[in-house]
Each structure stands twice: as C-alpha cells, then as structure tokens.
C-alpha cells in the first residue's frame, strides 16, 4: 500500500477536530442551511447526477460500442471509478462542512485553486446547460397544438409546394435548424438575437432563480418534483413504446452484444468518460450538498445508492429511447419501401396490391425483364433498417430531431410531446441546481461578497450575470458556440480537477486521517475496497482517461458540423474548420480552470515569501511579572 504523505503543517489548525464536529453541527444549525430530511438530500444528489446525458449520450454510446457488451466496461468502471470518487466527495464534504473552495483551502491553502477551478467549470457548464433548457422550453411551449408545428413543412410563396429547404431535408430538421435556431452557416456569422429564444432563455433563468433563490431551502422543495417526474415519464414512455410496432427491433439493436468491441480501447475510454461525466463529479456541487448533512450521516451507503440509481437510470432511459427509435426506424423503413413500391407500380401501371414488401424483389425482376428501358428510368431509394436505427441518435439531434419525429407519428402526439419535454426540463433543471450550488457557495467562501448581502441578492446577481453572458447562444451562431463549450469546457478541466481532488485527499490530507474521519462519522473503517480504489485504482484511471483525452483533443483537427443549405450533400451536415480565433477561445475555456490550480498555488507561494520578508512580525516575546493590580512592565 502506498503510504506517501506530503508534508502539511497547520492542517490541524484549519479543520475542526472530530470532537468539535458534533458541537459545531449544533452551533451551525441556525446559521448554516441543512436538509429537512434524508429524502431531500438523496433526491437532490440523484437529480444532480441524473441529467440529460443519461438520456441522450449513454444510449448512443451503448449502441455504438457493442450494445449489450458495453455494459461490461460501463459497470466495471462504475464500480472502480464512479463509486469511490463519489464516496470521497461526500465524505470530505461531510467532514469539513464547507463548500468546495472551503474544503480545499482547509486541506492546504495552496489547493484553493482546485476549488476555484471547480467554480469556473460549474459556471461555464451552467452557462450553456441552461440554454439547452431554454430550447426544451421552446419545444414545450409549442407542444400544445395539434398538429405539432414540426410535423408539416411550411408552404412556399405560391402555395404549390413546400419551402425548398424543408422539402430537401425534413420537417423536423427544418423546424429545429430554421424555425428554432435560425442557424447561420458558420460560427463567424453571428447574426442577431433571435427574440423567441431570448424569451425562452429569460423564462429558463427565471425558473432557475425561483428554485435556487434561497439555496437548498428552496431547491430541497423543488427536487420532490424535478427528480421524480422523469422516472414517471420514462415509465409511461416505456409502456407506450413497447406497444408500438417496431419497438422490439430498436431494443434488440441496442442490446445485441458485439464482444469484439471490448478489445477496442476507445470503448473503455468512452465508458470511463461517461461514468465520470454522468456522476457530475468535480463540479463542487456534491461536496457542498454533502456538507449540509449531519455529522453521522452514512455517506458510504449514500454513495453506493446514488451510483446504483444513476447506472440503473442510464440503462432504463436507453431502453425507452431505443424502443421509440425502433418504432421510428420501422415507420421510416415502411415509408421508404412503400415509396419504392409506388414507383414500380406507377412506372408499369400495375394494379395496387399486386406488389407487396414480400414479392417486391421478384416483381422488380419481372418488370426489368419485360421492359428494361422503362425499368432503367425508375429511381429506387435504398431502404436499410440499420441506417434508420443509427441515424443522429445522440445529443440535441436525438431529442429535437429524431424523438420529435417519432412523436409526430404516434397517436395523440401533443400529449407525448408535452410529457417528453417536461421530462427533459426536469432532468436539466435538477442538474442546474447542482451547478448553481457549485458557483454560489464558492463565491461566498472566497469572501468576495460582503457578508451583509442576503443570499437572494447573490443568487439573483449570479443568475443575471450568467443570463447576460448566455445571450451569445441566442444569436444565429449560438448552437455552434454551445457545441464548442460543451466539447471543451466540460471535459478536460473536470478530469484535471477530479485527479487533483483524489490526490489531495489521499496524499495531502492523508488517507489515514481520512479513514479515521470516516470511522468517526459512520462507525466503521472503510473497507479494503475503498482503500485500494482511493489510493491506486481510481487516480490511475483518472490519469489514463485524462491523458488519452488530452492526446486526442490536441491531435484532432478542430472541425465542427454546420447546417448549410447550399452544401451539395445537404441535408447532411457540412464539416467546416474552425476559424483561428476559436483556438484562443478553447485555450481560455479549457485552460483557465486547469491553470487555476497551479496558478493559485504559485500565487500563494509568492505571497508567503513576500510576507516573510516584509511586514509580518512574529509575536514580541515579553517577560511579564506578576502584579496584582494589573501593572504590566514590558
């Protein structure tokens, strides 16, 4: 066992001792927020962890990396990486009873940068995440009509046909790219603010403000709805989905194991990254939430429960999503086939009903034989189920294009649309609570805010500031900015912070001290599993994933997908290189949080050096003679 421990003088002075913890809890009970009951805490943590990624990232990864076989790396890494990190964050927060900046600066003043990095990342992720919620709200507002606005293309000027852009792509594509985003053709072309998205963004930030206005006092009530409603809706969709034609083909496609994928390192990498991001680790929110717990709360059991729920939700959501995708693919396949049949019977004036899906191939040959010249003029589409099953099924494409199209084909479409977007809204909002916590509490800990200011004011200012910055995403090029931030702000910095977290707790705070703390808090020492994973396995895994990501990110060409009606292969997205100034943005977005960690350490070092040289004096030694009347002769 590695017993390395870095020197850490003064640690005892900075943290409350175990004996003080219980009395501290009693003292703080009036001033510091705390959970009304255990259920609130669990629902908040589950809500923070379970987010949009469980619905639109995991199913795609699962299906593209070998279906059922992907469960193996996913579950292994869940146990080796997710649960230990989660337990670590819960335990350290509960022990030191502070937010992320407070915790890291208590462990060592030079580590304050870790907390600041967490705050930056929470801020940047919150910036674009709420914009996605705004888009979800736009679709939600538009779901209260029949027929749904994305089920038909708008007509062109003389009403003889559909708008060209819509006719060439599809009504759902057109609705997303043109009527919602009104997207430009490059990130350079900013355009103007789209007022309807601005309204939805305002609404999204207002709702977030109302829910987080007093910290966990208000979010604790909101999570009763936002954390439970997604499960209800998922179940309803599962029942609906399984009764639709073709659902089983989707589920089979999802879970068909392809064991050869296990030999591909990218599968393990993606599984590790998915476990990591899906647990919302290193944002600082979980540490904060856990610090409001009572001292003897069983954080070990909590971490296991939350991890299991998160894993289960991923698999459950994947099943639901793919049952609906199977339905859509089957419908599209049938449509494609019917179009081919129609082409054949129209070309040869055969009676309807003579050609079916079963005898189509024979009839084709018969027609070819009877009149090759006429047959050669007919154009048939290729209808392949696998293509339909694998198109565009991750990210915003899944939610706003594929799923919305599937919904238009269901009976009572507006109802399903409303339910689906309410679910996405709740999933996103509960994750935003954690992000806000990860920004508000560090700002309070950093003492940049005057203590007199009420929490409502602070939360309001943060919401307002982030809202104004998020106006960038309402421009015509907003979606490109969002993808950029999503790719770089939420990936490398988080991995860095998580690695430093583990390293700090195990080697700077001291794993022995940590073990004793946990023994005090929950009654028994952490078992050998935790020891091994905290000291060796999890940091190694983090480091491996981080290095791989770094290598891949640095080597890959910075290209992005663009919606360009003038592209030859339209409606496929065109891959365009980013302009040069984007490299600067990427460096800022990904580099500033990472550099905050060593940067702050260096800053602290320099400040200490200067202090020792200059103004700080040691206490003056004085001889005091006892004098009953109080004369002190110095």
């Amino acid at each position: 066992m590695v017993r390395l421990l870095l020197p850490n003088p003064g640690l005892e002075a900075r943290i409350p001792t175990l004996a003080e913890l219980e009395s501290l809890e009693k003292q703080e009970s009036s001033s510091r927020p705390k959970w009304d009951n255990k259920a609130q805490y669990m629902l908040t943590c589950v809500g923070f962890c379970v987010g949009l990624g469980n619905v639109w990232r995991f199913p795609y990864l699962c299906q593209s990396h070998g279906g059922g076989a992907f469960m193996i790396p996913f579950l292994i890494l869940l146990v080796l990486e997710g649960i230990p990190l989660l337990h670590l964050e819960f335990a350290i927060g509960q022990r030191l009873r502070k937010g992320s900046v407070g915790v890291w600066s208590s462990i060592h003043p030079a580590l304050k940068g870790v907390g600041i990095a967490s705050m930056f990342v929470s801020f940047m992720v919150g910036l674009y995440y709420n914009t996605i919620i705004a888009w979800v709200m736009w679709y939600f507002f538009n779901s209260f009509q029949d027929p749904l606005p994305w089920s038909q293309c708008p007509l062109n000027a003389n009403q003889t046909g559909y708008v060209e852009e819509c006719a060439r792509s599809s009504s759902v594509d057109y609705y997303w790219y043109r009527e919602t985003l009104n997207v430009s053709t490059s990130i350079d072309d900013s355009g103007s603010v789209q007022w309807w998205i601005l309204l939805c963004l305002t609404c999204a930030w207002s709702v977030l403000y109302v829910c987080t206005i007093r910290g966990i006092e208000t979010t604790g009530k909101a999570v009763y709805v936002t954390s439970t409603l997604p499960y209800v809706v998922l179940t309803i969709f599962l029942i609906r989905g399984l009764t639709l034609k073709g659902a089983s083909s989707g589920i089979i496609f999802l879970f068909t194991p392809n064991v050869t994928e296990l030999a591909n390192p990218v599968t393990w990498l993606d599984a590790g990254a998915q476990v990591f991001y899906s647990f919302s680790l290193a944002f600082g929110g979980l540490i904060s939430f856990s610090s409001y717990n009572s001292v003897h709360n069983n954080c070990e059991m909590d971490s296991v429960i939350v991890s299991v729920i998160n894993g289960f939700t991923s698999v459950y959501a994947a099943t639901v999503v793919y049952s609906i995708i199977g339905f859509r693919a089957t419908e599209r396949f049938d449509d494609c086939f019917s179009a081919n049949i129609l082409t054949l019977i129209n070309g040869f004036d055969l009676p309807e009903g003579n050609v079916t899906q079963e005898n189509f191939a024979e009839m084709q040959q018969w027609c070819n034989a009877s009149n090759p010249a006429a047959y050669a003029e007919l154009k048939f589409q290729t209808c392949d189920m696998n293509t339909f099953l694998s198109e565009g099924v991750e990210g915003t494409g899944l939610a706003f294009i594929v799923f919305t199209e599937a919904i238009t084909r269901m009976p009572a479409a507006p109802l399903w649309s409303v339910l689906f977007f309410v679910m996405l809204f709740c999933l996103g909002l509960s994750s935003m609570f954690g992000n806000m916590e990860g920004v508000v509490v560090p700002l309070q800990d950093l003492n940049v805010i005057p203590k007199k200011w009420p929490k409502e004011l602070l939360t309001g200012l943060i919401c307002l500031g982030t809202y104004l910055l998020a106006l960038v995403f309402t421009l015509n090029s907003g979606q490109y900015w969002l993808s950029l931030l999503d790719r770089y702000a939420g990936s490398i910095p988080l991995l860095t912070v998580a690695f430093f977290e583990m390293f700090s707790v195990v080697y700077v705070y001291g794993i022995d001290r940590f073990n004793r703390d946990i023994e005090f808090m929950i009654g028994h020492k952490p078992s050998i599993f935790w020891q091994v994973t905290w000291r060796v396995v999890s940091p190694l895994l983090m480091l491996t994933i981080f290095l791989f990501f770094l290598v891949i990110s640095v080597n890959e060409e910075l290209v992005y997908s663009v919606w360009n009606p003038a592209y030859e292969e339209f409606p496929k997205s065109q891959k365009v290189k980013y302009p040069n100034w984007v490299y600067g943005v990427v460096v800022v977005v990904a580099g500033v949080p990472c550099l905050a960690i060593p940067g702050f350490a260096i800053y602290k070092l320099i400040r200490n050096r200067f202090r020792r040289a200059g103004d700080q004096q040691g206490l003056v030694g004085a001889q005091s003679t006892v004098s009953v009347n109080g004369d002190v002769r110095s």
Partner: protein
Amino acid sequence: MSPSRKILWAPNPSFLEAGKSTIKVLADGRFSVWHRKGVTMSWMGPREDAENAFKVRLSLRTALGDKAYAWDTNEEYLFKAMVAFSMRRVPNREGTEISHVLLCNVTQRVSFWFVVTDPSRNHTLPAVEVQSAIRMNRNRINNAFFLNDQTLEFLRIPATLAPPTDPSVPIWIIIFGVIFCIVIVATMLLILSGIRQHRRKNKGPSEMEDTEDKWENTVKIENGIPCDPLDMKGGHVNDAFVTEDERLTPL
C-alpha cells in the same frame, strides 16, 4: 379527333366518337388507336393535342382499403362529368358537355389520359385552361371520389396545398406568458417573505443589543467591583479585598 383529320385507315370514323376505341397518345404527338375488335389505326395529330392531354392516376386501395370501389365505366362517366363541370366554370367555356371529355388508355393501375375538346370537336382545349379549371375545383373532384390530392393525382397539374391554420396569437406565446407570470409572482412572494424574515431577525437581536448598551452606560462593573474606582485610587488600595473592618461585625 374529327373525322376530317387525315387518317391512314379508318373503317368507320364514327367509331371514334362512339367511344368504342381506345386512343394512346405518344410523346412525339402521334395518336395510335386500337379498335375493340383489334383494328389498329394511327395518324399524326398536331403536337398541341398531345400536350393538352393529362394523365390521371388513382390509388383506390391506398385511400379506401377494403371499401375501395371498382373502377368501371360508370366511374369514368362521373369523372368526365366532373371535368366537364370544372370546365363549365371557366368564363368562356360554359358550353362544355360530357361528350367533349375524352378518356383513353385506362390501365389496371388505375390510370388514364384525358383530353377536353371544344364544341366543334376540331381542337382540344389548351392545357393552361384545363389546368386552372381543375385546380380551382380540385376539392370537389376529390370529394366526388372520396379521395385526396395524393390518391387522385393529376400529373402536371400541381395541387394548391392547404395552408396550415395560423391562429392570430401563436399558442406558444400564451403558454410562455402564463408560465412566466407564475414564475414572476412566485419570485416576488419569496423575495418579500425573505425581506420580512430578515427584518424580524434584525429586530430581535437589535432589541437585545439596546438593553445591553443601556446597562453598560451606567457603570462598568467587573466581578462585582466598579471599574472606575480602581483607576482613581491609582492602585494603592485594592477594593477587591474587603477591609477587615467591614467584614467583621463590630463587637
């Protein structure tokens, strides 16, 4: 298709008008005619006549499924009647009769060609007129056959698509307004209750502070001994110790 047209071989021109022949229009403008008894005739007609013919395609099984009716000569008669009706609504063509509408080459698909001739039966009516007439009355024609624009196709006659219903106020703004108002009201309530709580908290401790201040202003007392006297005495006498005289009761 008047008998005066140059015909290579026609046993009896009246056959053409009696409707017992089927006429096929070829792309280069030639007409070929099959007589029921197997006689074939062909002649060169002017190109315009070929361009003035339209192909119609019906998809009865797709539209009606089991309730699909069979396409027979009665249905053809109805079709001719609908076309004649459409033409009669065109300003100059009120005299169009059913016999002016000629159908040919009915296939099993069901598809056929039709052409509308003028009263003299010398010329066919221009395509533009027929197109506009059919377009204006498309709905009536569709309804007569229980079909729609997709299942009753007139090739080369584009249908006017029904515009989607556009309510005066888009529904989404209404929903947005409702939700936003609820959120604003909730925010106001929470902020106001927060301010009230804050005031109550401030009043509580500040009242306690006032009484403490009053107390301290009178005399600074420490350990039961007034502080001031200690200073004035300059440290010579320590009032902390009670003098013997005072403590012991006098004898």
